[in-house]
């Protein structure tokens, strides 16, 4: 099972993924895909330390698959929406270009 660590940035609130060198990235494609459970637990422990250091809020492990283009895609709809944004436009009602379209 492939996993990633997702969280919200404390000051900005935006969604972030744990990336290489234990830094946080805003684009899921830059995040680290964790192949084995031990690696995932270690990454989560790192993330929780960063939560204690007031960088992020509520880091969690999520399951992902890799699509044809090599991009990680969260398995759960909720996490896919967090990763790619709302599936609807704001304000004008126009459709957004979220990458979650496949779930509709």
């Amino acid at each position: 099972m492939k996993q990633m660590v997702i969280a919200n940035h404390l000051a900005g609130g935006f969604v972030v993924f744990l990336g290489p060198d234990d830094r946080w990235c805003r684009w899921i494609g830059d995040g680290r895909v964790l192949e084995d459970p031990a690696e995932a637990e270690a990454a989560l422990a790192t993330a929780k330390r960063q939560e204690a250091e007031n960088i992020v809020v509520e880091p969690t492990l999520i399951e992902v698959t890799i699509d044809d283009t090599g991009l990680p895609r969260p398995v759960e709809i909720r996490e896919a929406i967090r990763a790619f944004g709302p599936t609807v436009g704001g304000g004008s009602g126009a459709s957004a270009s979220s990458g979650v379209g496949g779930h509709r």
Partner: protein
Amino acid sequence: MYRYDEFDHRLVAERIAQFRRQVKRRLAGEITEDQFKPLRLKNGVYLQLHAYMLRVNVPYGTLSSRQLRKFAHVARTYDRGFGHFTTRQNIQYHWIRLEQVPDILEELASVEITTIQSSGNCVRNITSDQYAGVARDELADPRVYCELLRQYSVLHPEFSYLPRKFKIAVTGSPNDRAAVAVHDIGLRMHRNAAGEIGFEVLVGGGLGRTPYIAHTIRDWVAPEDLLAYVESILRIYNIYGRRDNIHKARIKIIVNQLGIDRYRELVEEDFAASKITSRPELPQEEIDRIAAYFAPPPYEPLEDIEDELDALAASDARFARWLRHNVAPHKQPGYAIVNVTLKAPGAVPGDITAEQMDALADIADEYSFGELRVNHRQNLVLPYVRQRDLHTVWKKLDALVLATPNLNLLSDVISCPGLDYCALANARSIPVAQDISARFVDVDRLAAIGPLTINVSGCMNACGHHHVGNIGILGVDKRGKEFFQLTLGGSSDQNASLGDRLGPGLAQEDVPDAIEAIVDRYLELREEGERFLDTYRRVGIEPFKEAVYGTGEERAIA
């Protein structure tokens, strides 16, 4: 409308300064998320899926053009250029940075708007009739009592840590546009035999996972006793309400567990005792003082111009439709109430851009004494438009895509933000609302169908009030897939009722077809003069079940 006095200004300024320090301490790591969360919630700040969300109170739905312009400014400067009006007459911003919230609160305070108690276990924004002060059927302006209750309940030490959130709604009209029967406390103004105005008090209504229609706890409470009686209801709730289980903590649970008679006994006992101990008094002078803020605007002495409007309507079918559906009669001759629907085909219900807000504020200044209203159906209202300006106002609204003639018709769908934004949601409600409004675009067909409310919620917390939609739609998660359960027969008016579940959940793409099937069956069955709700109440659920899922036999085979 109400204007802050020196005490209001000071209280809000001190509160913002306090929250600024709390945010600073949180960002510096001096307090943990667990410690900070209840503090931010008391200031309307949630952490949602993509960002922080800020919920801003619009007290009892009354808004000045100046305040709307500030909402536009906040949307443009601190968010992504839009805001979302909610079923509680508030506005929410979905893309907020925590570090900027204290600045936003200062901006809002400059136009006498706050986020205090827009969340947390306290008395929330007190909601009311969007036609308050202008409705023909109104006994008195309910906003006077909303404001008195607001001042009384804001930061009230006894009621700052209730078992759970607490929602109060007030109507001054027998035709309930404020959904009072599904609130923790609903106040319904009426006259006694002596012709005096007082309140029927309802308690224990609510939606969510355990929906209830409220019970009448007292048929008559005189205005001078209103605060004291509400205080007694809150006090008994504070003592008996459950704090061990968040799902059983609302007042509706304890009212229905104890029974309304026992709850009434406890409240009456406390109410009687408060006469001797301490009772918040509401002298007539104080009622009059607050009422003065809600004095009518300087109307011009005008006559109704029905003939002229009929002539204009006869020459312009689009204007005629808008006039018929979106304009309501006004108590003042020569004036009209204009409803501004935020429900264009395919639009996100309740969403409005900063540009639309600014333009609407200009229209309000020119044609509605600078005032607007927000209703619980996620639409806006221009309350004081001269009938002779209706055609001009329509053209201006039409240019802003704010004149869809569908008020209270099938495509005027209510929807919570759902899984596209909300951390609690199980399913996406907005796309369902969009699919429906995009499917039912023929305004003549909508008019032929007649009044029919559709409410969509993305989870059982029911922010979209699906239980009281004539057709309710509830999003559920079944093994990682979104499904939608339909209910029929709900209503939030003076004859409030909860919808009955139609059958198994449907996939999102099947919902518009199901709505079509229900509507077609209704049109076959309806009798002269019936609305959808009337027909449903007469014939029951079975014909509609059959229309959507087939006959009993077909269902058994499936």
